[in-house]
């Protein structure tokens, strides 16, 4: 199994989730994060004091899928999440050794 981690623009979340559901992904974990990258942050001013905010709001998806599905998931995310502008995000793939479904105790591909 593979763990796919993606940092994306928040407003793309629903679209990506739907696209993934279509290709058979049945679960994921979503976290709101602060992203740092090429996309520049913004400046906030409070009573004349300027603060550079270097972080940009992103959502981070974690999806565990059977090896066979991994490439397709990466492709789907890459296609759906893109706007062509800086800050579209990244996708990382890691190897997962084991998965367990708490409710049933199922393991491996059955668990996800």
């Amino acid at each position: 199994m593979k763990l796919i981690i993606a940092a994306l623009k928040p407003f793309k979340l629903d679209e990506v989730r739907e696209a993934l559901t279509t290709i058979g992904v049945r679960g994921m974990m979503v976290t709101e994060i602060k992203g740092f990258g090429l996309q520049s942050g913004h400046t906030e001013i409070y009573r004349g004091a300027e603060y550079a905010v270097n972080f940009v709001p992103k959502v981070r998806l974690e999806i565990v899928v059977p090896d066979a599905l991994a490439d397709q998931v990466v492709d789907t995310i890459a296609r759906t999440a893109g706007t062509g502008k800086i800050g579209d995000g990244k996708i990382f793939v890691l190897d997962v050794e084991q998965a367990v479904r708490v409710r049933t105790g199922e393991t491996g591909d059955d668990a996800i």
Partner: protein
Amino acid sequence: MNKITKFAGLAAPAALFAGLPAWAQEAAETVEEIVEAAPAPDTGDTAWMMVSTVIVLFMIFPGIALFYGGLVRTKNMLSLLMQTTTIAAMMMVVYVVYGYSFAFGGGEGPYFGGFGKLFLAGVTPDSLAGTIPEYVFIAFQMTFASITPVLIIGGFAERIKFRAALLFSLLWATFVYFPVAHMAWDANGLFFGWEVFDFAGGTVVHINAGIAALVGAICVGKRIGYGKENMTPHSLTLTMVGASILFVGWFGFNVGSALGAGTLAGLAMINTFTATAGGIIGWILVEAVLRGKASMLGAVSGMIAGLVAITPAAGVVGPVGAIFLGAIASALAYWFVAVVKIKLGYDDSLDVFGIHGIGGITGAIGAGIFCAPALGGQGFAGERGMGEQLFYQVAAVGITIVWCAVVSFILFKVVGALTGGLRVTADAEREGLDLTSHGERAYHY
């Protein structure tokens, strides 16, 4: 027979009060006090009117700001607060400069108060309006003029340019608000002459704001993602707080419109209570029946609908009739907001038309019905029956709607042309107006 009929015989004495706002005379008369060129104000009336003024201010700062602000997404919170603050401040200056004059400047036409009191010319601390200092009357009216354009911004929240919102408000107040205020509340005004019941601003404030917001929602266009993305309110807690402050402050609105602390004030007070309770319960019942669950946002929406509905009627109906008036307005507003709006597909972000417009129309017409003594009301104007009273109520509503819709439409086009389009860019809308228009974020938890 309602006390307003006494004005019929006021034509002559009214002349004595040349500069006095008509409504001041009405109230004074209504509460059966002897209106003379009294040298000192009545301290009790003045105390109440100052309180009324302060609590209507409270409806703006922070009442409506929170009611509206809680309903938008986090990223647009400050834009709502900021538009509220700036428009209200601007209107305060405008009111002193020409607003008071345009509405109550002594002009004898039915639509325009004239230039007689520009910069409050001629008003001194000793000038009285009825039993209260004229400065207090001006301040009271100023708060009405400040809140009304603020109500409108809910119609196109989360996407309008800051400077477009300001410019529109300025022009709208000039060409819609002040004329309608003159029509309704000045002794020489059109509706006033018709003896239309508009106790505290059903036409001037609520129908006016509702229509302008509807026109604005259409002219500005839908929010990106409207109907697809979840545009859930970022804090219903704040919305509830805002609604509560509106409830509280509305006693300044309605009871203050008695212009004194007499028996008319007492009537307006009890009616404002019961109509609001009716509004809350009305909405909740409809929701409970149709959806199986009563919601908090529903309860406060019903609250506002009830308050709006009793606004024109507070001094002419009775407390039991007011319950029904509030409940009916609330149910109609529900139907409009949850059914009609969704069918028609326009994006009145915060339902200004659905609640203020519909509530205001219901109240203005309902005032002509529930004032019937048979329904516990205080009676019709003069020797009128219900039919005749209703005719004038409907006429006033109709004129307000048409005037406001036409002028607002023109003004949106003009403002759009002057500001390079009413809307911010799509990217700015996505990122949120707080950062892109004001350079701040509301929360850093």
